[in-house]
């Protein structure tokens, strides 16, 4: 994944308030990235033949793009995900990803951060929307 506009000054998620909106971050999903993704997940090679990006590859890169805007402790893991796939994305597309911190919770020793995410294609059409909850060890 090639992040084209990532912010180099990372802040801790603890410094970001609920409602904080991340600046748009763009990434390209090239044929080589999609090929590597499909090899990793043992996925259907038809995606390459038809030139379509698997929707979860778009989602995974969107989450990574947002996560690169702030720092979380190593060992943080995903707790839940909600996604809606709205439009097919062709291989080679540049996707713009945005979102905000929707919620922060503490459960025992775990801290949870819920991110709202959306991804746009080059025509500024929504191709994906969703939520990702990241569990951060205490």
């Amino acid at each position, binding site marked *: 994944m090639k992040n084209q506009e990532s912010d180099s000054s990372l802040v801790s998620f603890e410094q970001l308030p609920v409602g904080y909106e991340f600046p748009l971050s763009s990434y390209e999903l090239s044929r080589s990235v999609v090929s590597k993704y499909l090899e990793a*997940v043992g996925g259907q090679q038809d995606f390459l033949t038809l030139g*379509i990006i*698997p929707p979860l590859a778009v989602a995974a890169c969107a989450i990574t793009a947002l996560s690169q805007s702030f720092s979380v402790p*190593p060992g943080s893991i995903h707790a839940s995900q909600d996604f809606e796939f709205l439009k097919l994305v062709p291989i080679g597309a540049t996707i713009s990803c945005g979102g905000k911190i929707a919620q922060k919770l503490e459960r025992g020793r775990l801290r949870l951060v819920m991110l709202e995410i959306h991804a746009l294609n080059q025509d500024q059409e929504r191709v994906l929307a969703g939520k990702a909850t990241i569990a951060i060890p205490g």
Partner: protein
Amino acid sequence: MREVPALNESVKVSDIRQGDSLPSVVKHVTQREINLYAEASGDFNPIHIDEAFAAETPLGGTIAHGMLILAYVSEMMTKAFGKSWLEGGKLSIRFKAPAYPQDTITTTGKIDSIDYKEGVPYVNCSLECCNQKGEVVITGGAVVKLQ
């Protein structure tokens, strides 16, 4: 269910019935695939790729990215619904347990109901990923809007 549709082919409501099982997907997780996934997604969290770091955590070793295992769910949904899933699918899941290298993950699902909103059919599915011990790794649901 009928035969697996092509990726660029939509499914019609006449092709499916409530109670149908979705085509299950069985995958063996390896550290090599986890490392490849890290490179493809850009997620280099050490809990996935650094065995020394992961061994010191409560998880006791590296684990697969949750989104890697979730890709198996999407593969099942793609096999069941083709293009209808790729541009009309909604997924809502929880990660219940980690998947480790050498785990075998079986993904299953079924059609719970078919609802109509303004004449458009929406297919509601339940889904689950389990490891070789029968432990649930992912549980959740999906909705597919049929055109």
